[in-house]
């Protein structure tokens, strides 16, 4: 049985741009614009997209590290945005985050013991006497030794630091962990180790992950379902298999074609997009991808496509935001490179 653990509805995160001598608001950076999705308990949902598409912002908004502009975030049936500061602090026990940069995410002046102890102290998870044992256990869990508790962050490698970050997140027994590019700063071999550790922890501790990444290989390895974002909007949601084998949105297709194939003899039919990602300050009207989409028509410039499931060749739960899923699928429309 699957239960919804996290439900995000119409989330918007606009960052004001101020200017002029009076500091008036001139415009907004629409980092996340009307995003809705849900995460089932026990699954790993990935959000992929290129830099600046709003994937990290979404994660930060869910944790209220930045207050979202509008929308609803419901966790375990509770509306997170309705909580006051104190209630939210308590709630944070259930939602944790593992950051991208293991060198920046731990206070350089604290030992691992202080880091873990502080986390437990803040959330009051265990009486003082029992914390010592718990800390040792946590170190073992993330693959570090209990003897390393009194070391400082600078005495560890990047991969080890990321494990400390994981131990810190685990120390408060969270239900949901947001992994914000948690492995992208690590070497490939270390990436695999950390990913496997995350998978193992998920099985053992019944964790739910919201995994934010730009590396499709990593996403393929860890996810159950995948969200593709482009310029602050979701363009496609699907289970991992459907998304990688049967992408429907032109942007997703482009993204997938960029995955390198480990076969030098195979000719790549890579789709190269024209131009750059438009600015999120004045995003294109209609479909945000129309400025770069090889299939774009006048309709794409005017009407915002909704996420929908087409009747042809799409699994349940697979949704894409494109006006022409059917036409592209049947070959009726040809790309105009």
């Amino acid at each position, binding site marked *: 049985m699957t239960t919804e653990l996290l439900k995000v509805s119409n989330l918007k995160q606009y960052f004001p741009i101020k200017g002029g001598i009076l500091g008036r608001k001139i415009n907004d950076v629409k980092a996340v614009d009307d995003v809705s999705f849900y995460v089932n308990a026990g699954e790993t949902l990935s959000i992929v997209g290129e830099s600046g598409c709003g994937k990290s912002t979404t994660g930060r908004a869910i944790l209220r590290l930045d207050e979202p502009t509008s929308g609803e975030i419901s966790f375990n049936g509770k509306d997170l945005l309705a909580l006051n500061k104190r209630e*939210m602090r308590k709630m944070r026990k259930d939602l944790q985050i593992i950051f991208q940069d293991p060198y920046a*995410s731990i206070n350089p002046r604290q030992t691992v013991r202080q880091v873990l102890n502080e986390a437990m102290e*803040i959330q009051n998870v265990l009486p003082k006497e029992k914390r010592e044992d718990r800390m040792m256990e946590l170190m073992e869990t993330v693959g570090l030794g209990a003897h390393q508790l009194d070391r400082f962050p600078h005495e560890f490698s990047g991969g080890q630091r990321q494990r400390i970050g994981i131990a*810190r997140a685990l120390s408060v027994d969270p239900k949901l962990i947001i992994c914000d590019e948690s492995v992208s700063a690590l070497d490939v071999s270390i990436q695999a180790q950390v990913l496997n550790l995350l998978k193992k922890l998920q099985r053992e501790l019944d964790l739910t992950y919201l995994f934010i990444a730009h590396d499709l290989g990593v996403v393929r390895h860890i996810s159950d379902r995948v969200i593709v974002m482009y310029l602050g909007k979701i363009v496609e949601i699907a289970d991992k298999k459907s998304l990688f084998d049967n992408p429907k949105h032109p942007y997703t297709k482009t993204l997938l074609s960029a995955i390198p194939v480990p076969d030098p003899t195979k000719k790549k039919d890579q789709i190269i997009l024209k131009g750059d990602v438009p600015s999120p300050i004045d995003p294109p009207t209609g479909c945000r991808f129309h400025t770069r989409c090889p299939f774009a028509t006048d309709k794409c410039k005017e009407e915002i496509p909704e996420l929908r499931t087409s009747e042809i060749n799409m699994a349940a739960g697979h949704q894409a935001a494109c006006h022409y899923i059917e036409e592209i699928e049947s070959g009726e429309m040809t790309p105009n490179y």
Partner: protein
Amino acid sequence: MAETTVNVSTQNTKRVNPQVENFKTMWRKLKTNRVAMAGGILILFFMIISVIGPWFTSYDPLLPDISSRLQGPSAEHWFGTDHHGRDIFTRIIHGMSITLYIGFVSVAIGMVIGVFIGIIAGYYGKRTDAVLMRIMDVFLAFPGILLALGIVAVLGGSINNVIIAIAVFSIPVFARIVRGSTLSVKNLEYIDAVRALGASDARIIFRHILPNILSPIIVQATLRVATAVLTATGLSFLGLGAQPPTPEWGAMLAAGRNYMWEHPHIALFPGLAIVAVVLAFNLFGDGVRDALDPKIKS
């Protein structure tokens, strides 16, 4: 033989605290800076004098002795005597503690308040920041000595009022520096991490931000003592600080002004004392700043 090598290597991998380590690195760099070390040794020397000096002087700093007034430097009176016949050397030694007391206490008060305001402004940002920093700008807009003058003129001349005046004009200087450092630290991921754990603002500010912005505060405090001493003696010189017959250097300088041509030693020695203290703190402060700057390698 093999055993000794093992011992050495285990000793090398001893736990190091980065705070202690930072201090050690700073000290290593500071030691090689001769000018700064000279300043530091002078400061230490002055501090010792201010505590034990008064026991080693053979005259009373306050008691007039008309029979020996206006004498030049001699074996009996090393720095001569003033217009009341008091031994200037004795008075300078006694004044040392007053000067250092004003310098340290005023800077300490200004630092505590300034750091608090700066960290609050930097951490909360937005309107809090705008309001606090505009108030600080108002204070900064006055030349320091003018602001101090105004405050002392209102409160009345005494050593404690001088301390208050100097503390007040030190506040915005600390607030500015601390605000800037806070801004750079508060967006680091480890601050977000403790926030995500549910840490309160007070915990984030005092446990995580403050320890990471100490270096610029220390440098500023050292340099600030020099300014404080200069301002305090300046106020006393103008008759707004310590009142005669207190052996305060600024007041002594002012008294010597009337005898400038015939007996320059009355003004000269207190003046030299002021120069020495201010210079010592400036040299040491500059050295500390260079030593704490990671870009300057020794």
